[in-house]
């Protein structure tokens, strides 16, 4: 009755109404940003008096936007490689190993996910200042890998638990050495988990701002840090243009993810 859409009666329309309202609430800021990025008014008047590509031209003419985007990309790619690599190894140990303290290690790997990011950020800020990693790409990559790792491990562990180890053992019985069996049988079988881990790790680094604010130097900053710095000065429509490009990027990733899921099914 209550869980059957067609038998809800009048309640059905109340729920649909709330659904439309929330969908609008969720979409409003996104659509609004896209509209502003093409609007001619510097004072963010809406609806804008006319349409222009000026903010995109400003964006691409400013080397700081380009540099910070490249830093972000570089950082996110390295974080993805590192998180998937370390996460894959760790997941093998967590799912199949039987060493003492395994559950404690698993809990520790998940810790960075539940800690308030600000605590991690200030702790790393102090530490990296001391050992000279503040304001370096290595610093960015290490810090982001630590918070991306829990997501990567969760995704890979789930896939590995679903995979029947007997298949890998069979390959070994047929003469493959253990590494070959892992590489040619197990890893292709859990590719969806690996892909999920890669997407999570990439997005974690790409979108991360709190740690990056503390890690950045005047000469080296990621895209979110540059947006943050710009926002603190004024609400220029250039940020709307940058946000719109980020949105397109997210949409592209979602499409790729959906396509990948469809293909592996």
């Amino acid at each position, binding site marked *: 009755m209550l869980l*059957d859409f067609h038998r809800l009666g009048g309640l059905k329309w109340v729920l649909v109404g709330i659904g439309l309202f929330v969908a609008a609430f969720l979409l409003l800021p996104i659509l609004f940003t896209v509209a502003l990025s093409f609007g001619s008014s510097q004072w963010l008047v809406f609806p804008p008096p006319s349409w222009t590509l000026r903010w995109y031209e400003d964006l691409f003419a400013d080397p700081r936007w380009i540099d910070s985007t490249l830093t972000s990309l570089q950082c996110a790619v390295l974080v993805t490689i590192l998180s998937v690599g370390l996460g894959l190894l760790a997941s093998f140990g967590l799912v199949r190993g039987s060493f003492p303290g395994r559950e404690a290690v698993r809990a520790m790997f998940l810790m960075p996910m*539940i*800690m*308030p990011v600000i605590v991690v950020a200030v702790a790393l800020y102090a530490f990296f200042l001391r050992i000279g990693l503040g304001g370096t790409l290595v610093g960015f990559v290490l810090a982001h890998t630590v918070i991306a790792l829990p997501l990567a491990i969760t995704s890979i562990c789930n896939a590995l638990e679903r995979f029947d180890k*007997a298949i890998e053992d069979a390959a070994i019985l047929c003469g493959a050495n253990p590494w070959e069996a892992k590489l040619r049988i197990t890893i292709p079988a859990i590719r969806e988990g690996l892909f999920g881990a890669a997407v999570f790790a990439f997005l974690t680094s790409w979108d991360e701002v709190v740690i990056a604010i503390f890690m950045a130097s005047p000469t080296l900053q990621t895209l979110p840090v540059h947006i943050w710095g710009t926002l603190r000065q004024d609400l220029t429509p250039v940020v709307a243009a940058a946000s719109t490009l980020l949105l397109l990027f997210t949409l592209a990733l979602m499409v790729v993810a959906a396509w990948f899921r469809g293909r592996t099914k």
Partner: protein
Amino acid sequence: MTSVSIVERGGGPPQRRRRSGGGFSYVLPALVLLSLVFVLPVLLLLLRSVTEPTLGLQNYAELVESATYGRVFLNTFLVSAVVTAITVVIGYPIAWLLVILPRRWADLLFGIIILSMWTNLLARTYAWMVLLQRTGVINKTLIGLGIIDEPLTLVNNLVGVTIGMTYIMLPFIILPLVTTMRGIEPDLLRAAALCGAGRLDAFRRVLLPLSLPGIAAGGLMTFVMSLGYFVTPSLLGGTSNMMAAELIAQLIQSLLNWGMGGAAAFALLVLTLALYALQLRLFRRAQAGRA
């Protein structure tokens, strides 16, 4: 364990190949990284909270006694509680819809939620900064409709923080609620109807109690996440009503007061972990109740 392999159970030849108690070397690289870039720095920060400026608990004493710090933590609690309450009230019908809507519409709604969740946090916060300003669209619309005469102050205060945070947190409560509500047997509601329960009765006495574990777990998660949030409060909030994460950032980055900053960070950390432990217990009980 979801799947136990046959060989492992039977103890065939490959089993002998595995050293007993093995697997530790696999987790070692990640463990080393985590120890050096996470555990050690956090411990060092905590150490500074009891050694700077002098050895002792004076930083924690100040944290408890000072009216300024007290107000920051009160603000943080207040905003987190209000955000949690709003997200539960709005998120519940949305989760319900997602469970019962015909497939195509559910997918569409789901896509919108995921899209908003995946859109860059700063991009979304920027949008709210623009929408909520005095000359922004929301004020203009309200004035145009004749609802208000003077523009409302919607940003640089706790109202702005609450709106922005609600927007960010909504998906995080909807997703666990959907999981809980999918687990509810529709037959139970049919049985309630057969026993003569009206819609309101069935909701109050069957559907709501059964979805309570999801509300509790999701609500607690929203609350905990809100407590430690930094970006949205500092962009949409004002200078006079800071939240905890901003206080920590300011103590350390602007005032270079590592002792107090460390103490405030530790207080937030303990609070967060305690609430997570509570959430884990609620979640376990919910699962036990279902089994």
